[in-house]
């Protein structure tokens, strides 16, 4: 029997809902998709609960209508500058007398790694496992191998209780369960960077409207993630102020004429703000638009470079830098990213087989949610469900959701 799963991203510019059907053979079909402008959100955080909830609910409703089915549980993307990541490590010595690694050894190491409690008022959002080391060697699945010591780590992201609760309540108000919270950056990089790229080492930068999420992969595992509270809205805001135009016109100018890098062809050329040349319309040099955008985008990558200081190692980043998200559509961003970060940056492309209507950079996160949700992220030798109750169960207890059977 096929299974229906849903994904929700509460984005700063749009709330998106996606419904997928997993066939018996494990293939995923997107059967419903809707997005609604979201006015309840600023810089990746909910500022107006009712507006955000209304946008999410109507997106979910439309997606359900389109698919002709209903969903019971969804994967929810989580972002916002309140999220902080850290590496938690655990180790265990192999207990059996013949030095053969057992599942319980892995579990002990994992427990030790996750033992550290988050600070007051904060909750873990996501534990992402990093490679397992058996006596210092990276192994895929050590169960059954010989060795004496297991080391493993979790890149653990914790966030503000209130912010997470609010996001969860948006979903529970629609009588849905949140199956799992997934970090936006991890969701979008799951989609945009294939397993081979992740193994080669790659940095995925998801430039959204409110925030820019990034995830750095090394050896196929997450090495670092982060959120920078600067996004496409900042570009619009800057244009609005710099060119002295109202925000809707600034947005329009950004989309129609925005470039992040100056183009000698544009020298001396003007564009009209409204375009109908009526009273109140005026023309502005293209150069002014480019100048405003360039400073902002360059600053964004400078901040990224500061955040990733010491982590960008040419040997560990053979996959280069991938850009996605709505704001990555600005012409010239990839040149600026390459120049400032010092690695080849390019716009990420969707894997083949995704409907061209869906294959837009702004959909990377929500599509990635489904794909990430389908993958098995548990410890080798354990069933997926077991792992989930491990950290999500704790969540449910904290946020007051019923424990899922």
């Amino acid at each position, binding site marked *: 029997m096929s299974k229906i799963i849903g994904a929700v991203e509460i984005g700063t510019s749009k709330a998106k809902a996606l419904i997928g059907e997993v066939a018996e053979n494990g293939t995923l079909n997107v059967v419903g998709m809707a997005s609604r402008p979201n*006015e309840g959100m*600023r*810089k990746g955080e909910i*500022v107006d609960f009712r507006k955000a909830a209304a946008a999410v609910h109507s997106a979910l409703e439309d997606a359900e209508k389109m698919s002709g089915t209903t969903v019971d549980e969804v994967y929810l993307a989580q972002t916002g*500058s309140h999220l902080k990541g850290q590496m938690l490590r655990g180790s265990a010595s192999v207990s059996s007398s013949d030095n053969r690694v057992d599942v319980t050894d892995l579990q002990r190491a994992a427990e030790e790694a996750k033992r550290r409690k988050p600070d007051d008022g904060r909750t873990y959002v996501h534990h992402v496992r990093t490679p397992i080391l058996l006596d210092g060697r990276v192994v895929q699945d050590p169960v059954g191998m010989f060795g004496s010591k297991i080391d493993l780590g979790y890149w653990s992201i914790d966030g503000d209780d209130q912010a997470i609760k609010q996001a969860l309540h948006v979903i529970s108000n629609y009588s849905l369960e949140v199956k799992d919270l997934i970090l936006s950056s991890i969701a979008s990089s799951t989609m945009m960077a294939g397993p081979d790229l992740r193994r080669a080492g790659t940095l995925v930068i998801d430039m959204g409207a409110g925030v820019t999420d990034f995830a750095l992969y090394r050896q196929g595992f997450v090495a670092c993630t982060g959120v*920078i*509270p*600067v996004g496409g*809205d*900042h570009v619009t*805001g*800057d244009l*609005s*102020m*710099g*060119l*002295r135009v*109202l*925000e809707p016109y600034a947005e329009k100018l950004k989309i129609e004429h925005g470039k992040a890098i100056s183009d000698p062809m544009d020298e001396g050329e003007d564009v009209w703000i409204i375009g109908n040349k009526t009273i109140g319309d*005026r023309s*502005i*040099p293209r*150069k*002014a638009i480019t*100048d*405003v955008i360039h*400073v*902002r985008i*360059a*600053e964004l990558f400078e*901040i990224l470079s*500061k955040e990733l200081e010491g982590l960008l190692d040419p040997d560990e980043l053979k996959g280069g830098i991938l850009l996605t998200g709505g704001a990555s559509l600005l012409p010239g961003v990839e040149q600026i990213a390459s120049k400032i970060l010092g690695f080849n940056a390019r716009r990420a492309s969707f894997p083949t087989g995704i409907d061209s209507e869906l294959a837009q950079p702004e959909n990377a996160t929500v599509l990635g949610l489904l794909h990430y949700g389908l993958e098995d992220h548990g410890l080798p030798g354990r069933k997926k469900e077991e792992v989930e109750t491990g950290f999500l169960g704790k969540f449910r207890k904290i946020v007051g959701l019923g424990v899922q059977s």
Partner: protein
Amino acid sequence: MSQDNLFPKETNFSPENEIPGIRAKIIGIGGAGLSLVDGLRFDNFQSVEHLAVDVDSRALADSIAGEKLAFGRRHTRGMGTGGEHTLARKAMEEEKDVIRKKLEGVDLVFLLAGLGGGTGGGAAPVIARLAREAGALVFAFTPLPFSWEKSRHSMAEECLADLRKFANAVIPLPNDSLLQMGGADATALECFAEAGRNVSMGISAICALVFRRGMIDVDFVHLRKAFNRRAGRTLFGYGEGDGEDAIRQAVRELLLCPMLHLPDVSKAADALLILITGGTGMGMAALQQVSTEIREEFKAGEHIVFGAHVDENMGNRVQITVLGATDLEAGIPTADVAPTAKEVIAVLPKSKVAHSSKLAKEKKGSKLKTVPAQPRNKKKDDLDQNTFEFMEAENQRGIFGDLPSRNIYAGEDLDVPAYLRRGVKISI
């Protein structure tokens, strides 16, 4: 005191028909304040006095202000404060009585103080408080340091918040934005000079409003009523036009004025002062149109002071000055005897939906109150509500200033446009 003979040519107004009885004082505090006062070019208002206040006696000696006051000698021995605003504040508090005496009988006070330095930042809030206590209307023009001067900048913001508690209107002039003034190849000095000129125009406009008879006349009482509350955000803009289409040109320039496009400025004003000065040829129809346009642009509520003055010396030129204040802190009682914003609104006739404050969050309450009060005007009411909603959305989305927390990264507020913080000039 009068300095007629010093700057005879630059004046826009002739000293005849000046209305007596109201006294204004321009007070420059600290280095930046002093240089602004010295740069003013409209010194022939009979009842406008200049006072320079500083701890640095040498700087004071160079000032051309009519009245000078050195303070804090005991603490600094006549030298500067070295950026210590707590020191300046302490010293100023000790000289309270001297300042009170200087403020006696003054109705209108203009404070010019750079908030990045010690003297301006520390003393300006104290003087503002004393002036309010003395019953004066206080307008403050305050240059702010560049945002890359991180520690000075954050200190200036503290002082600004302090000053806002007492002044009726505080017009921040961030150096970041001043660099955006003038033409594409203007030097930094020219930008600052231009900014100084705009400040002087602003003060001149307010003085003209109060002291001269105009074509459309408003007086001190109007001004007082419009601004008689604690200052929230303030907007200040200036535009000038020449030739046949002067008035349109002036409006255009006004709307492009960099000072109206600061991160801290919301373009919705609860109180708005518009002053148009033009030559004898200024047409009434054009005036009316311009006033409607400006009102709309700033979504002005009830408190509009509109003045038009004719000056033969202007020829075909037209100048428009706009000064507005948004009452951000409607809920917080004012520190002195002045009526609070709510009291002021309550007194006014409720012909339209009262905008208690466009940025205040508790708008639902006021909506509920006004609807049952005017059941017959329902249609008109709806219309007003719509514009209200539109405006609300505009405020929120344009600029991030309404968010409760700032987006600080390494000492810089990332929500402030990058080009402003990086000092990149955008020529439009």
